[in-house]
């Protein structure tokens, strides 16, 4: 008998390693780790938190979501061969060395460039790491389908890769409707000593 929405809801999905709220910290840690592996890392242009729906038997299940963290290089850096080619090779070896499964590594001849999708999978927590080389180059960490959390449960994790926490390029604001909770800095505050500045 074909499934209905109700049937789909009543089936039990596989246990997830995290809830939505719990997934951000380990995923951000994966980005912090890969940054250390990239030689001459130029910094990222922006960070974004997003999510995609989870569907079972063709129906979206609103109880679950697939968290995605994206860090994107600048357009200038995205055109560099080091970022487009060398970093992909470095990450492939790095992730394989960490015991991750390389589940995709394909090159695509786009119109006036060569794109690449390098995707690794961490079986322990089903996190995917996707180095996407297109017009922009970006790293996307995906949680797999995890139970949805209330916004109030989601804790801020400071960005890596040169993104200013709470700045314009730290695009996580919709998860913190009362404002991104970073420590404010007083621009007029004097340092304890000027010795190092003289």
């Amino acid at each position: 008998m074909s499934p209905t929405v109700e049937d789909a809801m009543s089936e039990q999905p596989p246990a997830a390693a995290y809830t939505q709220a719990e997934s951000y910290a380990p995923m951000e840690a994966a980005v912090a780790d890969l940054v250390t592996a990239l030689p001459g890392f130029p910094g990222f242009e922006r960070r974004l938190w997003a999510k995609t729906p989870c569907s079972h038997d063709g129906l979206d299940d609103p109880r679950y979501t697939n968290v995605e963290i994206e860090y994107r290089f600048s357009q200038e850096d995205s055109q560099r061969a080091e970022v487009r080619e060398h970093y992909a090779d470095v990450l492939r070896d790095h992730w394989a060395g960490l015991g991750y499964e390389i589940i995709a590594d394909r090159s695509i001849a786009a119109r006036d460039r060569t794109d690449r999708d390098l995707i690794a999978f961490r079986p322990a927590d089903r996190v995917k790491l996707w180095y996407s080389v297109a017009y922009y180059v970006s790293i996307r960490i995906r949680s797999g389908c995890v139970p949805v959390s209330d916004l109030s449960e989601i804790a801020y994790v400071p960005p890596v890769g040169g993104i200013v926490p709470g700045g314009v390029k730290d695009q996580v604001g919709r998860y913190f409707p009362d404002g991104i909770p970073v420590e404010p800095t007083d621009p007029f505050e004097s340092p304890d000593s000027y010795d190092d500045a003289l």
Partner: protein
Amino acid sequence: MSELTWQHLRDLDCAAIRALGDAWKSHVDAMLDQAERLRTDVIDGHLGVEHYESDTATQVREQIGLTADRYEDDLSDYASTRIATTLFEAADAFEKEQAEIKELIPLIEQHDFDIEGDRHDYEVNLSGDLHQAILTLDPPQWLCDKVGIRKPDGFWDWDTVKALFNSVDLYGTAIELAGQYQDWLRSVMSRAHDADDEAAAALQEMSENPTELPPQLGATYDDLVDDYKTELSQEVADEAKAIADGTSGMSPEQVNQWWEGLSDAERQSLIEEHPEWVGPVDGIPTEQRDTANRTLLDNEITGLDGRIAAKEQALNGMDPESDEYEQAKAELDDLRQDQKDLTRLQDHITNADGTPKTYEATDQQYFLLGYGTEGSGQAIVSIGNPDTADNVNAYVPGTTGNLAGASGGLMDRTETMARDAANASSEETATVLWLGYDAPDTIVPEAMQDKWAQDGAADLEDFTKGIRATAEGEPSNLTLTGHSYGTTMVGTAAAQEGVEADNLVLIASPGTSVDTASALGVDEDNVWASTNDEDVIQYGPVHGEAPVNEEFGANTFTSDSPREPTEWWKFWEGATENHSSYWDDGSDEGEPNNEISRSNQALIVTGQEEGVR
């Protein structure tokens, strides 16, 4: 109803229709000069105050001026917008379908099929000769090739025996091909009839509602002219209402011409005083629709406060055990849900100060092109302005798509598509969530039915025509991306009504209402279907041939990639045949389906199809 037959369509002189449209356009330009001459040479000229003064001079000049205005309006509204544009649009539509007929009819004839039946329901059947050929074990070469046997040479040899044993295959194969041609033919005729009927409606509405001329000069002129001027000022509103109600017979292109012909003050007045006649209308530019729709949304949310309060009060006076109470309670729950869904939608696309919000990932504004609370609810929201974008991708959701999703999972998917397109190209892509139809709520029985797609087909057609009509500069590269039942919606609109899309992308499709990509009216090279191994169409291709099947004739693109062993020698870690994923994208089994599919889709919607695989 159109009486066009396939022979009429094949033999139609489309150039003559277009030439007639050109003739009307030339006539309009010439006559506009005459209208201006009435003002300059007559009103300000020989009947001007310097040369003509009497008790009735002012009335005469006014009457001539009103007549010149009426003449100009009619030239613009009727001769140009209605007659000429209708002729151009009909010529374009007929020419497109004529090209298909000219490709299809020879194929039907070459394969010895016959076309039978009514022009609205053609059948393509095996001819008597073909029946005979199969029965006498003398099948034509093309059929032998399709079935994979050598053509028997008339003697009782192995080829003849094979033909005998393959007679079922021969018939089945021939019938299947005839069915595909029938599908294609019916779709072509459906679109041609639709174009014919639409053209007729536009012209008929004009002839049934002639405009009034100013009152004639004479004793009653003063009594009548004020009423005439009042009606004049009401004309724009009446036209706008008829357009919004769908009774004007005008296409989105004609609506756009009408809109551009209004003064700034008239447009602003409509937006402010009657946003309900502006917001939902295809053919009116996006920015103005967005302004009007936001006003409507705000008013509706506010209005719901009052309706909810009234319903709560009514409930207080009812017997809680009564059926009346139960019904009123259900209505109250619906109102509260509507308010919740509409408020969430508003919050998603609007800043705290009331200004339109920008999707920060792509730095594009949200534009509200429509919404509704009937049935499952509707929402049409664009990320980026489709009037100015190089590419437009309209995502059509499937089963359980509803108003709540417009600020939930459906919007998440739309935003992901927008982000992927921005990462894939330097060109701007506007990504539209098009939930402009009442999507089915259940797989069984609703998603098995075609009524939801049938009911929404004309609206999706108009949406695509509206995108073309309001484009500033070159037309965008327009893609319709259907997901699940959304592919049935896209396919039904494309096959029956015709859509002005460059590309169709069909993901997890239970069928598109036709059995062949040829029947969709879009270049088959630009019809794409996903071969996602985890596509869950548990209820089978109930709406026609699955578009991923080779017989359908679409391009397919992969949504997965062979798994690679963690060590070179661990060959058993390669691609597996039996997937056991709970989630459709295979994420729980470490499948890269979603990611690969996204890369491919981004290339398609940004016009980089050569990279797709």
